[in-house]
């Protein structure tokens, strides 16, 4: 891999040092809402990464043509129309995936990480770094979503990768691992309190590994 130092810093920042969910604490609304299972987390992660990279590139392209005073409303408009377009296109051409990710896509609009990256990074940087930043931030967010989803799923219903076939196709039914079977799910982990506490523990873990 021949990455310049600049790009490497951006990637490391997105994945770990400046992680959206663990450090910037952005995008918590969709994060807390959907991380009931690992696959749900992965789904929202993919959709968010896609929108982040796309909106970062778009903002970077037009960054010289936007007056400073009205940049925020313009970003909001761009992101909203970007998300709506993605939703319509997915609905039309990847219907099965849309049925699974469909509920996540409007949730992306509530993700302030997108406008956060547009404002903090893409509006000041060239197109390629902006694209890399969007991708790295998105993947970092996805990783947290998957870990949190996985832990909540394991504690809550005793499985890992439940519902994988919804995202990956029929063959993925085999992927589901049952650790223990319960008639009654451990609702505390599945409902929002489990998400808050799980995220808190993840943040604590990161801060313990790398004290500021």
């Amino acid at each position, binding site marked *: 891999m021949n990455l310049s130092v600049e790009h490497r810093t951006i990637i490391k920042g997105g994945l770990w040092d400046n992680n959206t969910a663990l450090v910037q604490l952005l995008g918590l609304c969709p994060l807390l809402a959907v991380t*009931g299972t690992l696959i749900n987390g992965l789904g929202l992660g993919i959709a968010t990464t896609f929108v982040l990279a796309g909106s970062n590139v778009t903002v970077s392209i037009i960054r010289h*043509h*936007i*007056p400073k*005073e*009205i940049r925020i*409303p*313009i970003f909001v*408009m*761009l992101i*909203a*129309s970007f998300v*709506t*377009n993605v939703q*319509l*296109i997915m*609905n*039309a*051409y990847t*219907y099965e995936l849309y*049925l699974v990710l469909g509920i996540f896509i409007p949730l992306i609009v509530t993700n302030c990480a997108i406008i956060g990256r547009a404002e903090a990074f893409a509006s000041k940087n060239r197109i390629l770094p902006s694209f890399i930043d969007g991708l790295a931030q998105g993947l970092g967010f996805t990783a947290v979503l998957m870990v949190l989803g996985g832990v909540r799923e394991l504690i*809550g*219903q005793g499985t890992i990768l439940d519902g994988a076939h919804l995202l990956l196709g029929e063959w993925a039914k085999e992927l589901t691992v049952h650790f223990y079977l319960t*008639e*009654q*799910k451990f*609702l505390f982990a*599945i*409902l929002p309190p489990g998400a808050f506490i799980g995220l808190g523990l993840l943040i604590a873990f990161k801060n313990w590994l790398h004290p500021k």
Partner: protein
Amino acid sequence: MTEQPIQQSKKTRLLMNVMSENGLILGLFALVSTGLTAVTYVLTKDKIAQEIERSLIRQLSELVPTNSYTNDVYQDCLIVQDKNLLGSAQEQKLYRMRNQQENHALMLTTVAPDGYSGKITLSVAVESSGKLLGINILSHNETPGLGDKIERTKSNWVHQFNNLSLSNTDETEWTVKKDGGQFDALTGATITPRAVIKSVFKSLQFLQSNQQQFFELPSDCYPIEVDKK
């Protein structure tokens, strides 16, 4: 003293210039982004309608075996509306299945308006004899792990409806056991089953009220071209 008003008006003019320029740019962006979305909407509208139709038909095959009817269900349906019996003033679809010339079954989409977390949409398939072939939950927001067991993939709860009809049950039986009816509730969720049971019962009433007519009326839901692969 006379200088100040002049300066003031200069400032105002400058501010006005910046404001109108920014307003123009903002308007332009609004126009472009809304325009793009509108174009995408128009381009994808028919395809989306097709996909929704196709998935509904796929779900239909879970309730009514595809080899039990011979007509083209995609093209044979009615738009129906009934605020009291179908849960909302929304237009619903009624698909008709026929075996040769014989009326075989009807499938109705409907809404249970009083779920634990809002509306539950479902489809109800009924044989021409009035016997329930089954129901399918199409969308809902019920609590995961509790109310979501109404989904076919999550528990056997929906199977309780199979083979019931208005003639082999009494109205009082159409509720959960707790309320004196014949249906099992779900552990930890009573409101959800109550809503679904009520909605299914009303659908049966709706279908029975005009069954003959429902089979005879000319198809009036805008047929969409669907390539059947």
